[in-house]
């Protein structure tokens, strides 16, 4: 009965977070099969060791930590030793057929720049700008101090701002609130 209850708990987790986790992993890893594989492994592992989640701890960073670490493991151990991914799975192979307002072009450029970032910088960018975690939560996810997160984010922003794919990007007049300037 206990196992059945626990599996139901896992089902709840999956319904709540599977999709976003896969998309996060996709941004980190760069292709969908690896992302789905990593997230499935992460959920199983997280569920198996669900008792390790201390009472009062936040669930979301904990789950993302498992996902990020599994992605890290794949980036270190599996993907470098594998033949190149299928072209249609690459980040820079985002479909561009229908792009009336140039949004896929923007996405393509950002993805291209993101792909060129080192993994540890790419992870903090994805967690900050896609998952929308705070620096404190990102620190929990990657197991580093908040200062490290801040430093990595700054470095990632600096590199992205200097990336050729984003150099030609026209400024968006609607984004004044969040605009930041970086001296090159």
């Amino acid at each position, binding site marked *: 009965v206990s*196992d059945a209850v*626990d*599996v139901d708990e*896992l*089902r709840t987790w*999956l319904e709540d977070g*599977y*999709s976003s986790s*896969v998309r996060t992993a*996709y*941004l980190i890893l760069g292709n*969908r099969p690896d992302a*789905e594989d990593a997230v*499935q*492994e992460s959920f*199983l*592992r997280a*569920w*198996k*060791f669900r008792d*390790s*989640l*201390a009472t009062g*701890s936040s669930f979301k960073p904990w789950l993302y*930590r*498992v996902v*990020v*670490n599994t992605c890290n*493991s794949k980036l*270190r151990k599996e993907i470098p030793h594998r033949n190149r991914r299928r072209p249609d799975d690459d980040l820079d192979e*985002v*479909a561009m057929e229908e792009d009336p307002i140039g*949004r*896929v072009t*923007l*996405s393509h*450029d*950002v*993805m291209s720049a*993101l792909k060129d970032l080192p993994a540890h910088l790419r992870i903090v960018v*994805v967690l900050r*700008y*896609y998952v929308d975690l705070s620096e404190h939560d990102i620190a929990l996810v990657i*197991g580093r101090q908040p200062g490290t997160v801040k430093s990595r984010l700054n470095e990632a922003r600096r590199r*992205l*701002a*200097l990336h050729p794919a984003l*150099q030609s*990007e026209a*400024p*968006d007049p*609607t984004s004044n*609130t*969040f*605009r*930041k*300037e*970086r*001296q*090159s």
Partner: protein
Amino acid sequence: MTTFDEEMMTRALREAADDFPISEGAVERILDEARDAATSNDSPRIRAFIQRTGRVQSTLLGAAACVVVLAVAVPLFNAEGATTHPNALRVAHLSPAPIGEKTVNVHSPAFAIAGTGFQNTSGQLALTGSTISGIVTNGTSSQSVKAASLDGSLRVEEVGAIHLTVGDKLFQSTLTRLTDFATTDGGFVASTQSHMGTKASHSYSTGSIVLQVPEHNFTMLVDQVRHAGLATSVVTSAADVTGQYVDLQARISALKVSRAQYLAIMTRTNSIGGILSVQEQLNSIQSQIEQLQGQLNLLNSETTYATLTVSLSEAGHPVITPTHHARGIDKAWHESLHGFAAGVEWLIRIAGPLLFALLLLAALLLFGRLTWRATERRRGGIG
């Protein structure tokens, strides 16, 4: 000037990631695997997901520091505490009325120590390497050590020095008593030197006498001499020269064999040139034999007879134990200087091991950190 637009980044990431569909059936596959995994009894071995407070790291750091400090300090203190002089020298400065108990542990692979048998003093001997061990108490049990040292043709060379302070007008009679001790114990007086002081010239009588007794009577002689006056210092040492002795014997034997062979050759040689050549070799060998034999005889004599040098002085003679009798500010100043010098000496002495300990600690920390991170990665990342 370049810009980074956070809103643009958020929008682009969402557009890139949110567009593709999630595989169907993935959730059910995960649930199926979870049900299978639920039947296995793998116990969780991953630590709780809590933010590190540094407590674990501090504990590990403290433990590593303790290990390093102990690893450095214990050998250091052992090295400083143990009196492992190469000649197994033991020095005892005796108070006029020695009381209490003193235990000395000596570990020396090449030398043997004979107990001196101080009054009210017991010494424990532990010789790891020369197959001699024993406990000396009040000089009586030292004979067992001696007997053990002589077993197996051990050759032990013993020397000693005692400084005696004798009372007024007792100088000459003490010299006579010391001579009697040596002759009674089967030995002799090797040399004597004395200076007789007089009250008129305000000088004290001083002198020295060198006694030689059979090696097995050495401890008894030391004990007798100690009681002949006020012994202010007693130094005895014993060196195991068995190896040297055996080596000399072997070399002499080998040379004698060579000499016999050359003599045999000489009997068969007819030519003058051949005879001269063999004679030359024989002379050389004979010279070596005599030289080695002399060394052997000397060693034999030294191990047969133990030497005790006794220096005598009348009470009141200032050269016995120079002590600083300053008082007040002068004394405080000298003690202060001494303390400062001792502190500097201590700092210099400890600087080397401390540096080594710090380096070792840094290496351990680095290794621990790398291991920790590798373990974290291997575990797949929970916690």
